[in-house]
């Protein structure tokens, strides 16, 4: 923890002005993109299904949101994390509906439900999402989509699920804020969803963040078979360029994006007159990321970037972690199967093409200390994109959710 530094820095005035707006340097753009609050929460499977039902699909559920921390460090020549689930601090109400693969989801549409088949991967929509904090005055409504990832595992027949969502309407301190949320965890037979809900809220004027240290999470529950690793990635600087990838016929097939990986610590709580706030700290560089997203920015495909019709994307990234400078301890490769991108304006520089997006996908395989790893990787992000060789500012808030029954990736408290 001692090596962490606050990310809420003053924008630097150095750097090459962005071509699209001479007033905005890379550093200034990065500062603007970084104006976001993060709420890292955990949902425990505490539902008591009526009539012995095993599936939550079609039901309206209401579950407490707990504080959650998943701070990483390099320990024992691999990346590991402590995972602390704290006291309840909010609530999530929602209704999930399984839908056909071909269903085009949108907030105001009624999905044609299908039945659960735990043997195959199925899509679902997250309808009537209402997330609130504290006494319920601060929060938002949302909408999202996700997938199941069979087969059910273990004695409890847990079925892995992940989903990505969008804030539709904020209330209380979230009034007027846009943002995204991602969740990943398990459906536990007869008890509902258990897992992480990661929320990123655009916060141009700093109303949802604090520089003060909030109380640390007091462990109240555990996730014995799973370890979560929280990360942040961004460009080292303007010199770390993104490039186009071209197919043999010269057409753009996507964008190559190199980034550096850092430690990330977040917390949230109520702070005096400020009310609900989040605290974000970034730490040391712990690795690198190289990725490819199959998108042509000039032709982003169906959708218009709105909450009703976001753009979709998919991609692949490899995350390599260092146990010493430039020495790999291990890596894993992730395929992002579902990503949703939303257009947004930067309050201080509305001329920029800014984006916020969220995504998830399976960890395909690992090397080194991650050999044999299984799990899910997901995140929520902000970006300003100008076609290469222009500026590409991007900041990811990531979470890796690893199957870890033996605690390989866990730092245990003494």
């Amino acid at each position, binding site marked *: 923890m001692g090596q962490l530094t606050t990310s809420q820095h003053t924008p630097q005035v150095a750097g090459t002005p962005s071509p699209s707006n001479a007033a905005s340097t890379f550093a200034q753009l990065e500062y603007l993109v970084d104006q976001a609050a993060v709420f890292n929460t955990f949902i425990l499977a505490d539902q008591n299904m009526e009539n012995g039902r095993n599936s939550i699909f079609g039901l309206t559920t209401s579950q407490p949101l707990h504080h959650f921390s998943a701070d990483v460090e390099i320990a024992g020549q691999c990346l590991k994390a402590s995972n602390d689930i704290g006291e309840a601090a909010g609530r999530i109400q929602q209704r999930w509906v399984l839908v056909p693969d071909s269903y085009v989801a949108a907030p105001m549409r009624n999905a044609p439900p299908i039945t659960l088949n735990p*043997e*195959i*991967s199925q899509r679902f929509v997250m309808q009537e999402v209402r997330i609130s904090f504290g006494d319920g005055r601060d929060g938002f409504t949302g909408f999202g989509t996700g*997938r199941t*990832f*069979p*087969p*059910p*595992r273990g004695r409890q027949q847990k079925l892995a699920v992940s989903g990505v969502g969008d804030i539709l309407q904020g209330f209380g301190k979230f009034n007027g804020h846009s943002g995204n949320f991602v969740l990943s965890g398990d459906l536990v037979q007869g008890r509902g969803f258990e897992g992480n809900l990661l929320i990123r809220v655009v916060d141009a004027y700093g109303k949802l963040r604090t520089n003060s240290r909030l109380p640390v999470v007091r462990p109240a529950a555990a996730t014995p078979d799973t370890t979560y690793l929280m990360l942040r990635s961004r460009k080292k600087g303007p010199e770390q360029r993104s*490039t186009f*990838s071209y*197919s*043999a*016929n010269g057409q753009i*097939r*996507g964008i*190559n*994006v190199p980034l550096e990986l850092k430690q990330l610590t977040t917390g949230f709580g109520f702070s005096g007159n400020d009310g609900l706030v989040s605290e974000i700290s970034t730490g040391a560089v712990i690795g690198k990321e*190289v*990725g*490819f997203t*199959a998108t042509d920015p000039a032709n982003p495909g169906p959708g218009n970037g709105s909450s009703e019709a976001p753009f979709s994307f*998919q*991609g*692949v*990234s*490899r995350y390599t972690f260092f146990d010493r400078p430039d020495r790999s301890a291990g890596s894993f*490769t992730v*395929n*992002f*199967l579902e990503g949703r991108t939303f257009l947004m304006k930067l309050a201080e520089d509305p001329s920029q093409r800014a984006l916020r997006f969220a995504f998830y996908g*399976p960890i*395909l*395989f690992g*090397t080194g200390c991650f050999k*044999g790893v299984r799990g899910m990787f997901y995140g929520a992000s902000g970006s300003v994109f100008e076609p290469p060789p222009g500026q590409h500012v991007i900041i990811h808030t990531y979470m890796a959710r690893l199957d870890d029954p033996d605690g390989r990736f866990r730092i245990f408290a003494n």
Partner: protein
Amino acid sequence: MSTQPASPPALPDVNAQTYPYDMVQTMLDQTANFSMFAVPVSGYDDKATLTPGNPTDWFGLHGGYGLDLMSDLHRFEALVDARSSGVRASQEVGQATGTFHCLLLFSPPDFKWNTRQAPPPWIFDPWRSQHFVMQECEVTFGDKNTCQCYGVGRTFPISVNGRHVLLAAGVANVMKGTGKLEGREGTLIFTGTLTPQQQFMGNINLRLRDPEETLVSENDLYPIETIQNPDRDNTFLELRLLKKNKNVKTTFGPPPSGNLVSLITPSEMRAVRYSYVAGSRGPRTHMQVGQALGPMSATVFFDLAAPPGTAEAPVPFTTQELYTFNTPSGETVGTISCGVVEGISFGLKFPQAPGQPGVRFAGFGPITGGTGVFAGAQGMLTVNSLIGIAPHALSLMHCLHLVDPDHRWR
């Protein structure tokens, strides 16, 4: 003007004899049959890439939009034995003889066979059955004998004892060869699993025409040197199928739709040992046929009006097949239902018999059901075949890949 509906064109008599049946059967059997077992090269996943010439184009990340497969090829022999106690196959994986390298690029389901164009980026999703094309696919024996292929395939996600398992099967046409494999017509087929490191492990059957018998040996080859089986979860039943005798007729079934016809083809299954070596004198193969195992009935669906398939435009086909396994005394111990979902066929000519039509074809598809000792079976069928048309003689090299973690069929 006639009020009678136009009658459909008459179907050809596929059983007619342009040349004598036995002569056609002999010509069809003039192939070198390589039954191999692919074992991933240890550590290759660290350097695997779809874009070796451009390492900073991360489209090439292994596992993302495709797989860069590199396997050692081992001798493989799987002799099937059917008794009243069940059906079992030996699974002898032998010494390494060469390598198999292939780029699998995932593709949209409607992407057509195209040897000159890569598919658009299509991300690998292990939970969906996906199509792929096989590019830069090469089988190498030693440093001189290679054959390069182009093909297509699919993944098949299944659940096995609570585990997510991804089967992969593919079919490819030999496009080019070197050394003793230069100028060969042939077809490659594979079925197996994708390992946790996203490499391929399983059976590869390569069948090359060899009318001059420079690859086929009439004599036994030196014995396989069995190694510890690298795949304890899968059993492969190697089969040879042909008509029981020249009097067995092929018939047309009900036409399924459009221009397609269905051809009902009875055959007899036999156990077989496909052996090969790849020493300093180049690859050699030998086939030893074993006991009769029972009947197999296949209904083949294809476009009778299509011109003969070529390397650039093969003719697709599908099948529905029923394998009935009998003991030597005729007792049925189990059946397997399956069918080819992705099949390609090519026109076949015989220099020794001008005007004799034939077809070289191969394909794969999932096992859809089983009875008796095969109740609950999961897995894959591959076919790698040559047939004559009029007479309808058969020379079929099939493999039934059974997911078998409990060694029910081993």
